[in-house]
């Protein structure tokens, strides 16, 4: 098998939870495809779980040349040690130049164990990846809590990186694409030292997926006023976002927080009311398609980072906007 795999330039980890592929996987395939083509090598994916034949095929439609499938009941749920062992074995066989993993919690738990086992370098939470003239991976990541960016190179192989969700472009699905699914032998490990006793759905707002975000900042005077944000978000089929101070004050749940220590979002429209535009907040929403800001301070940095801005009081604009959108909605009905 080492023959047919010897051209695996880029390997990506296809993350799944409850049998569902995490979307960061398609972003890794998007970036991985570009890098593999430039290297003139294959793009491969590794998928672990149980009953995932269809999902494996999807990975090919999204750009993988080859999918290494570890399909076994013992791999249904995420077990760091089992996942690591199988992946390390694969990497030692196919020897990819580059190995990318989503910077999700699962990815960031798993990647360092794999890197330490392989004694290779791992760059955390990358927001951009490129190749230098020699074909080495140039990894770009934020550090110092999002205040600076660092360019990092790795002098061992594989060059491993975790990649932030919602930053890279997703590849486009093409059901006509062909590729191979390689069924891998799974060596079941009896006792890895960890056992999942319970699994509770964390049924939270999934702000990372939202198309429209109506975000509140410290310009909001009391927690009750967040009702207005909810109302506007509901009217638009969107989600309420927030800067960190409101989360710290306990006014709104952490799942709504946008920014460096919260969620990265990439909606079609991001509306920021009473948010000053700190580097940490911008970090989480800078990739939004359209940014509309309302702030009463004409010098607020947020205004420079927006496509459209209003200098004014959110308490005047927000109710009026709700009113206008109601009108549109009613006329349509």
């Amino acid at each position, binding site marked *: 098998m080492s023959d047919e795999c010897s051209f695996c330039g880029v390997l990506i980890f296809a993350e799944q939870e409850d049998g569902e592929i995490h979307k960061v996987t398609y972003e890794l395939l998007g970036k991985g495809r570009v890098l593999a083509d430039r290297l003139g090598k294959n793009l491969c994916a590794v998928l672990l779980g149980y009953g995932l034949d269809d999902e494996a095929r999807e990975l090919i439609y999204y750009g993988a040349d080859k999918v290494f499938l570890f399909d076994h009941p013992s791999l249904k749920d995420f077990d760091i040690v089992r996942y690591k062992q199988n992946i390390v074995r694969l990497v030692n066989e196919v020897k990819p130049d580059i190995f990318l993993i989503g910077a999700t919690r699962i990815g960031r738990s798993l990647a360092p164990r794999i890197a330490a086992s392989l*004694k290779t*370098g791992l760059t955390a939470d990358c927001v951009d990846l490129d190749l230098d003239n020699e074909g080495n991976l140039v990894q770009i990541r934020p550090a110092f809590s999002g205040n600076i960016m660092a360019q990092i190179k790795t002098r061992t192989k594989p060059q491993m990186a975790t990649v932030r969700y919602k930053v890279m472009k997703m590849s486009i699905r093409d059901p006509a694409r062909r590729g191979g699914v390689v069924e891998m032998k799974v060596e079941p490990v009896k006792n*890895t030292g960890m056992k999942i006793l319970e699994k509770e759905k964390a049924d939270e707002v999934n702000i990372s997926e939202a198309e429209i975000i109506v975000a509140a900042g410290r310009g909001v005077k009391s927690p009750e006023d967040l009702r207005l944000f909810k109302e506007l978000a509901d009217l638009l089929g969107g989600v309420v976002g927030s800067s960190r101070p409101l989360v710290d004050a306990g006014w709104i749940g952490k799942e709504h927080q946008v920014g460096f220590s919260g969620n990265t979002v990439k909606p079609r429209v991001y509306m920021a009311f009473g948010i000053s535009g700190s580097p940490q907040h911008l970090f989480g929403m800078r990739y939004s398609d359209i940014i509309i800001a309302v702030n009463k301070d004409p010098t607020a940095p947020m205004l420079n980072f927006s496509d459209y*801005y209003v200098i004014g009081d959110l308490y005047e604009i927000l109710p009026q906007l709700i009113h206008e959108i109601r009108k549109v909605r009613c006329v349509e009905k």
Partner: protein
Amino acid sequence: MNILVLIKQVPEIEKVRFDYEKGRLDRSSAGAIINPFDLNALEAAVQIKEKTGGSVTAISMGPMQAVDALRDALARGADKAILLSDERFAGADTLATAYTLASAIRKLGAFDLIICGEKTIDGDTGQVGPEVAELLGIPHVAYVEEIRQICSDKIVVGARMERNKYIIELRLPGLITVTKDLNNPRLPTLRDKLRAMRAEITVWSYKDLNEEDALQYFGLNGSPTRVIRVYTPAAEKRKSQVLSGTAPEVAQKIVQILRESGVLG
């Protein structure tokens, strides 16, 4: 219960000044503190010790000035503190850091539980904990936000991943990395601080780690990653078009933008 807490000294980020125009970083007004997440790790260790008895040892790798962070850890309830400091440890990336910590832990001998922070506020990778676990060959759970139960040979913890929160039984010896939702770190009293001032802090250099001919695993030599360049993120240009008028006029303009972008009607 013999608990080890890994602690990193970091600059006070709030006081580091970032010059976005010049792309420079001014640390002169920033002091050095214990990485905030490591305070949660330490608090968790002290709470476990209060229940089960045993001892808490704080370990840090860093320059000599990191003794301050360790004194702080002693004031907050650690019983012992060990600093790993040597020029040969300098320039370490996460792999070399984990290697150094793991060899010190091996030298210490038996332990039950290692607790780390979720990540640091400077390097900010969250990699050192899981790498230490791998190098020691013990299981780990990252992002622990709840400790439900602890016995002599296992700990039951809650950790949130992307879709689910998992309640996991982890065999000991094992390692966990903890989030700041786990607990509220206590403040040291003046008495504790004074006691910590006088406490002895063990310092180990490369030689003390009993690693023969292993220099290639430490510090810059043992670091496969290299930071090539550091810069402050450039502000991307947006069109920054002002919408003016009365509140109703402005609202209508926003509605127009929403319609043109296709998210409304």
